[in-house]
């Protein structure tokens, strides 16, 4: 009997030692190239940002960012595998190496940058927290300041949950938080009337409103109570991978600035504009792409795969989508927005 125990224990120790040896190495780019796809953490289902369509294919603003990274590396936007994560699992999934990249409408904060061992690559959506109510049931309510005594549905472990507490405290309002771990549970509770108001990032509210039983009954209140800069994130301490993801974001925005679109990218390669030539890797003897560990025509691959930032925005959440979110803060800096890309040179 004791012999058995010892044998089992010995095997367990060996097994764990063997598995420990393969704990994530610090060269994600090589790992990704070797396995042939990018493992991307996305939201479990937020229409417009990341949700599977009727054919089971992932679609959305965040999903397209993952596809852009895959295009830059492999020249093929389909070389992505998606891991749906809820608010609670997302950081652990990235830390543990289960995913290579987190693109899940996640707010960039100092605490997450430091204590969690993450690095955010750049703000791909400037957002702010708002409230949604059922205007049919609560016709008199036109401002969040009238919500004293209300039950508010919120997802746990989000910056939203903290802003909510601070906002009501600062304005001396009473409220009753109804906190759910999963987005779907919070949505269902709000839809069934368990809560008077729903709070999350405004983009999320517009997206969730589409999934409610009667979307037209619900209005988003005008107050924005926080800054929510949403950014994709990678693990700290892997600068090579960080560079690839960071410059993919910059390339998307820059392409919009230069008017490079999915349709005209091939013509643009022979553009007379030296900036465009450089960005598209058509400059003689360029080493900009290889410096990243990619091919020199990496931007061409990205744009061919998913289009530029503006195209991604319009297709998923902007004018060309059911959400019809205005560009607002997310317009290019040249058009009064905040989207400003670092130069590729």
């Amino acid at each position: 009997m004791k012999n058995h125990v010892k044998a089992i224990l010995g095997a367990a120790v060996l097994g764990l030692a063997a598995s420990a040896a393969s704990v994530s190495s610090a060269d994600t780019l090589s790992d990704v190239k070797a396995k042939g796809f990018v493992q991307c953490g996305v939201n479990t289902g937020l229409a417009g940002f990341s949700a599977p369509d009727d054919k089971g294919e992932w679609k959305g603003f965040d999903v397209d960012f993952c596809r852009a990274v895959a295009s830059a590396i492999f020249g093929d936007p389909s070389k992505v595998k998606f891991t749906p994560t809820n608010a609670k699992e997302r950081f652990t999934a990235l830390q543990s190496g289960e995913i290579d990249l987190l693109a899940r409408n996640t707010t960039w904060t100092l605490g997450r940058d430091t204590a969690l061992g993450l690095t955010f690559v750049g703000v791909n959506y400037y957002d702010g927290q708002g409230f949604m109510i059922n205007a049919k049931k609560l016709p008199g309510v036109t401002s969040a300041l009238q919500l004293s005594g209300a039950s508010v549905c919120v997802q746990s472990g989000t910056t939203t949950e903290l802003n909510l507490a601070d906002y009501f405290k600062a304005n001396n309002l009473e409220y009753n938080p109804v906190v759910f771990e999963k987005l779907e549970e919070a949505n269902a509770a709000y839809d069934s009337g368990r809560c008077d108001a729903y709070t999350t990032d405004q983009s999320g509210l517009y997206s969730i409103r589409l999934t409610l039983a009667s979307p037209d009954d619900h209005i988003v209140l005008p107050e924005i109570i926080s800054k929510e800069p949403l950014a994709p994130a990678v693990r700290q301490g892997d600068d090579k991978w960080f560079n690839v993801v960071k410059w993919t974001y910059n390339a998307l925005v820059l392409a919009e600035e230069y008017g490079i679109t999915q349709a005209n990218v091939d013509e643009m390669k022979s553009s007379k504009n030296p900036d465009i030539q450089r960005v598209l890797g058509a400059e003689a003897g360029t080493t900009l792409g290889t410096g990243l560990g990619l091919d020199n025509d990496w931007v061409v691959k990205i744009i061919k795969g998913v289009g530029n930032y503006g195209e991604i925005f319009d297709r998923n959440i902007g004018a060309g989508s059911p959400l019809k979110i205005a560009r607002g803060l997310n317009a290019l800096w040249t058009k009064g927005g905040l989207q400003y890309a670092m130069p590729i040179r």
Partner: protein
Amino acid sequence: MVSQEMPRDASGAGASFINDPRIRGLIYQAVLFVLLVAFVYWIFGNTVDNLRRSNITSGFGFLNSRAGFDISETLISYSSNDTYKWALVVGLVNTAVVAVTGIITASIIGFLVGVGRLSENWLIRKICMVYVEIFRNIPPLLVIFFWYLGVLSALPQPRESIALPFGAWLNNRGFFLPAPIWGEGAWLIPVAFLLAVGLCWFVARRAHQRQAATGEQFPVFWTSVALLVGLPLLAFVAAGFPLTFEFPKKSTFNLLGGTQIRPEFLSLYLALSFYTAAFIAEIVRAGILGVNKGQTEAAYALGLRRRPTLRLVVVPQALRIVIPPLTSQYLNLTKNSSLAIAIGYPDLVHIGGTILNQSGHAIEIVAIWMVVYLGLSLVMSGFMNWFNAKMALVER
């Protein structure tokens, strides 16, 4: 095993000490112990090392930071300015509340259904059987969803609340009761109650002594009931009825004032009670059936009536069978309460999960969860073991 059968003296001076089963056993134990310590040490070192390498802060210092989030259900005072530590305590209290109320209700339902399954009445017997078979075969999470989504969500909106007697209301935000407000002199009531408990104990002891000495019996039960109800009531009257009620009133969003029992708590509490009761019913049935029929017959033959036979002969022997598996069910109920997370009842796991995500200290929070649930389980099984030892028949 074979070696033990060998005659001891044959292994004397000639044989190696390795063949001595006692020494060999000790060596095995020592090797196992060293391996275990090495294993734990290695796991711990590995974890700390990996965390440091991934630039994740570790340690329990974060527990003293400001929590920053609000909790809907707090039995003890809490605000978002309190620490993570205190938020965890709030969660632990909520877990304890649902566990204790659930255990009490599950025991009562389980006992009734268990006895019902042995009823002479065909209908009662079958109803109890159907109950047991349904709840025993559904995962507890589904039972929770049944109550939350199927029953409590279907209740009307606050504006169309259902009025209940005594100023209580029912809507999809829960159950609203008038809150008692105790006036001056109300402290007399708990004092009177404690006094009554003391008196009951005294009466029971005297009655026992008297019966042992003279054989005369004394109605201890009814005397106790009279004491426990009568004395606090007397104090209530003497203090001049120091009780008023705050009734829930309708406001813009919901009913305000009074005591609110939220649907999250209600569904968890009802689901755990009904689910666990199905198992307890089977345990109770097994316990009663496990007492030999001859015991009852012997008691009747000695002239005991039905009630004393049950109380003095059947139940003590049934309890001996019932208590150990009952302990497991109580532990299961307590651990199943962590399913609260699915419906947003702020128990220990729910609040721990929030803290985990807000602070990023996953390993520490998981460690706290494990230690707390282990502690809860050890305390409960310790208590049940003590109770079992007290109830066990003294065999001669």
